[in-house]
């Protein structure tokens, strides 16, 4: 039976080291361990070239080589007869391997040593199963067709969603139901800075809404900066970036930072860039406590989901609508009943504390202050996107493309904190403030 390379995808996950044997022109053999072997297609593999200089020298004079790869699920060994084709030091494949290498080595303190010099592409002439005394094991490998169906199921959900809010929920619910991936989060890029902000998550103890990741930081930040999927299949030797972050309300109040949720025992992670119109919109991130939880096929299917979500979000922002200006209703300045609450604004970072609890900072913070000020001044509770955009007071040159996202972040944070003021979306381009009592606004001094 002919073995196809694609059937051996698990061997390329980097869990069990692969090995290459070459021979010098005088016949002297050489053995090298390989940190990364990448499946290019059914006829080619690519090897990272960091330090095995003898191998590199040998294949330039004698291109024939043998590669031994191992299936980490059952220990099955496969020998590939390969022929060296070329070295690449740029291009799509090089970038992808550089990102993977960085993802798995930077975190174990070998960032410099493991710098990728080149990617050596080999043609695979034959694949042989090495004889094994063990009975062949039935492996529950997911069929590629299933990932495709799951991606279609998520796409269907997303295609029905009409606003930023429901698109994010459609993606996260879809991942859970169609892919049965239980831990996921969706982060969107803040156009004002080099940060990604969590807008939704599933499976974590805390939602982490409003938590931030710097572009370039960790696996999520790397997927954003390189605009490529980043996948790790065995984190057992990798120190986690965010492990030490304590997550508590006290901590939030002190640092004005919301901690990123995370699985303490994550073994597999995958981060997919969300790109639309050539612009990075965010990152979709999934993790699991199982080794090899995300296959190459999963990564491909999830990448499609991430791209579609990015396009849907871009469209939702563009078509958010301006909201019809309401007929000037008689300013209903009726007195708001209920317990008074205190909203403190810190001008230097636009952070907001409601009754001493940290809520949010930046543009969403400024937005809330703006809406509350108008509410107190005019007694109004309904606002249109159009008036928010045109507001002199807000002076936000960059806001027009991401108003919906900012309002969503504000709305979800208010909801999560069960704040005495809530924001409701009441139709295309319109929002309503619901206050549980009279608001007292304060500008923090110093």
């Amino acid at each position, binding site marked *: 039976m002919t073995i196809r390379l694609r059937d051996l995808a698990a061997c390329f996950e980097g869990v069990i080291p692969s090995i290459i044997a070459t021979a010098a022109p005088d016949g002297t053999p*050489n053995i090298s361990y390989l940190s990364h072997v990448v499946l290019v297609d059914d006829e080619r593999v690519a090897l990272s070239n960091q330090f095995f200089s003898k191998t590199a020298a040998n294949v330039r004079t004698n291109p024939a080589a043998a590669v031994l790869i191992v299936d980490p699920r059952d220990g099955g060994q496969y020998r590939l007869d390969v022929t060296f084709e070329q070295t690449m030091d740029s291009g799509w494949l090089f970038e992808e391997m550089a990102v993977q290498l960085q993802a798995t080595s930077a975190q174990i303190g070998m960032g410099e040593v493991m710098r990728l010099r080149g990617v050596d592409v080999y043609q695979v002439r034959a694949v042989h199963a090495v004889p094994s005394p063990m009975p062949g094991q039935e492996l529950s490998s997911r069929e590629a067709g299933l990932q495709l169906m799951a991606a279609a199921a998520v796409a269907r959900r997303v295609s029905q969603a009409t606003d930023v809010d429901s698109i994010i929920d459609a993606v996260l619910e879809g991942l859970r139901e169609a892919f049965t991936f239980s831990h996921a989060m969706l982060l969107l890029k803040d156009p004002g800075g080099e940060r990604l902000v969590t807008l939704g998550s599933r499976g974590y103890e805390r939602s982490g809404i409003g938590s931030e990741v710097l572009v370039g930081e960790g696996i999520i930040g790397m997927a954003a900066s390189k605009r490529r999927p980043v996948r790790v299949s065995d984190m057992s030797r990798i120190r986690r970036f965010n492990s030490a972050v304590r997550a508590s309300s006290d901590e939030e109040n002190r640092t004005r930072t919301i901690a990123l949720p995370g699985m303490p025992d994550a073994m597999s992670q995958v981060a997919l860039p969300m790109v639309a119109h050539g612009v990075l919109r965010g990152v979709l991130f999934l993790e699991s406590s199982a080794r090899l939880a995300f296959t190459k096929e999963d990564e491909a299917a999830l990448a499609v989901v991430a791209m579609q979500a990015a396009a849907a979000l871009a469209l939702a922002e563009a078509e958010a609508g301006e909201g019809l200006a309401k007929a000037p209703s008689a300013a209903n300045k009726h007195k708001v009943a209920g317990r008074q609450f205190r909203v403190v604004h810190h001008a230097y970072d636009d952070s907001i504390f409601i009754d001493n609890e940290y809520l949010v900072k930046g543009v969403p913070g400024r937005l809330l202050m703006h809406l509350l000020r108008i509410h107190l001044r005019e007694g109004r509770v309904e606002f249109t996107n159009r008036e928010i955009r045109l507001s002199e007071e807000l002076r936000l040159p960059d806001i027009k493309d991401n108003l919906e996202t900012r309002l969503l972040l504000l709305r979800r944070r208010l909801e999560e904190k069960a704040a005495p003021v809530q924001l409701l979306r009441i139709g295309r381009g319109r929002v309503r403030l619901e206050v549980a009592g009279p608001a007292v606004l304060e500008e923090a001094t110093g």
Partner: protein
Amino acid sequence: MLINQDLAAFMASPVMIILGTRDDFLAPEIARAVGAVVRRDKGHVDLMVSEWQWPKTVANVRANGQLAVTFARPSDYVSYQIKGHATVVSTAAEHVALARRYMECMASTLGELGLEQRVVAPWLVDRDLVAVRLSVQEIFEQTPGARAGRLIEGQP
């Protein structure tokens, strides 16, 4: 060539042993060995290989004798590569017993690193065992990093 004592001890410890050979057309081949008997004074190492599992490697040694072997410690990747000329010699009871001990020891070492027995079993095979006797000519450092590939000892 005399093999230094530390290296001899390393080769005989639970390390992964990989053989590299080539055929008459310079097509390379890979195999695993299940144990090494080091004769420091004679400058040779006997490597236990399952001819059932790795027939081409054994055939290559019989045909031309050119051999490279790496010894790699799975916990920290400390590794050495040894090159020289090899022959296939008849196995003694000592070889068979050593292979058995090596396989037990290796399985438990890999077990400590989180690899299940059923996963490592296909790598530890002693069916149709032969001994490949390597006369050591060159020793290289092979631990990943800047010094990988450095010749430690070699005879002219």
